[in-house]
């Protein structure tokens, strides 16, 4: 699929306010998202055509399952008239998911450059790390560490305070 050159939009205001953008996930599912919501993503902002007809934007890095949720997130955050407190509560529920899903959200937020989602997910991961020793962190995220003997020694020295 050929794409026209990206629009040189300085401000993120929709060209056709109620226009729907079509997105295609890596596994071939198509999703529709309002342009206003799509503009939450800097990546999508750069890809949206200036004219109002568009072929689905392919997103090879995001699966259908995750893209559906991302669309949901962006739509919610583009909704007018939502007060801060309820949005925060909604966000908390949104990330109240399995570890592996948070991982996918982070990667999607990074690829699609959605600052609000990236911020939210990084905070969640930081919360998962808080209060844990390196060993506990490894167990939690199922990381098999392979430090060199020198690094191992350095790590031991730097973290002795947690065990003394």
């Amino acid at each position, binding site marked *: 699929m050929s794409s026209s050159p990206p629009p040189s939009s300085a401000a993120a205001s929709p060209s056709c306010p109620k226009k729907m953008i079509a997105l295609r996930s890596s596994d071939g599912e198509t999703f529709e998202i309002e342009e206003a919501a799509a503009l939450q993503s800097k990546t999508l902002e750069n890809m949206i055509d200036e004219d109002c007809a568009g072929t689905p934007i392919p997103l090879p890095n995001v699966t259908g399952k995750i893209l559906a949720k991302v669309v949901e997130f962006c739509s919610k955050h583009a909704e007018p008239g939502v007060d801060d407190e309820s949005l925060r509560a909604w966000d908390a529920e949104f990330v109240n998911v399995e570890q592996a899903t948070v991982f996918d959200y982070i*990667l999607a937020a990074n690829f699609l450059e959605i600052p609000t989602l990236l911020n939210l997910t990084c905070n969640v991961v930081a919360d998962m790390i808080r209060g844990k020793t*390196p060993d506990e962190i490894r167990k939690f995220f199922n990381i098999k560490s392979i430090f*060199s003997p020198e690094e191992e020694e350095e790590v031991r020295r730097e973290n002795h305070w947690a065990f003394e």
Partner: protein
Amino acid sequence: MVNWEELPREILELIARRLAIEDFLAFRGVCTSWRSTTAKETYDTKSKTPWLMIYADNQRAEFRSPTTGRIYPMQVPGSHVRTLSAPGWILASQGDRDYHIFNPLSRVSIELPALKKLRRKSRLRVQLDGPKRLQRRHPRINRIALSSGPSSTRSYVVMIHIHQSLGPLGFAFHRSGDDAWTAVSPTMYLRRSTVLQLIYYDGLFVALDANKQIMTFNKRNHRMESRLILGQNIFEGHPYLVECSGSLLAAWTMWGEGYGPVKEIRVFKVDLEKGTEEEVKSLGNASLFLNGNSSFSVEFNAESCLLGVKPNHVYFMDNIDEKKKSYSMDNGEVETYFDAILSHDRFYFSLPEREDFEESTGVGPSSL
């Protein structure tokens, strides 16, 4: 398949930025890729809430993390401990001898030369020469400053001000790798006086004495030079020199009538070039932490994670009731920051510098 080890570097950085000191250190110990994103270039030691050094005696110190309340005991090479401005390093000594620069987190310990080892003959050395004179006069380090954190890859200078039982003796310095101190010759017109503060700022060692004189060390002729006299109008306060957002500040904690608890803190920006000072009413998005030997500042920005700390505040210990308090530059309110009364209550920056030391058999740093 989810592999947390393979999170992109920029994301790991975003996560690491949000962690308090102890969680940040744990993060670094998880795996090689997580560790490599926390190299010195990617974090600023002043972006995290400082720990409190709440106890130091019998070769042990305890550090408390204000954000989690957890206390971490660590071994230190000495019973008398003071913080240094090089982040993460302290000065530990056994009585008035055996001075070590020590990093409790990496456990690297560097022995300083004995005070009586002065390289140049000067009035200073003559007074310290001779065992009898030495014993009677009890020389000790009154103030100490480092040009940078100790490192095996670049040289640094340690400057000290020496006191003896009869009063101030003078300044001396030592370059890393030297095995002796070099005395700073006294300057004719500068009256010898107790040095209250000694810091390293903008490439210079800067001292403030009890006559409110600010002097800097001239590297070429090895003498102290007077720059200005501070705080003509301030009579009932204790001064602290501290760098903040690139400027040199003198902060005065002013006690209430009859030596009551601190009522006010006034801050002045010192211009060494012009020899002037100007009162500062706001620290902007920075805050100060005042320690007797070395104070420091923190800045609130996108990279910082300063939980429990507020901008435009001064954090200090009130010597009257020995409580750790905060002073708001906005409205002058004094609040208790940490109210347990413990000995050796000091603010301590515990993120170590990222210079690694190699174990060596010669003169140089060794691990505890």
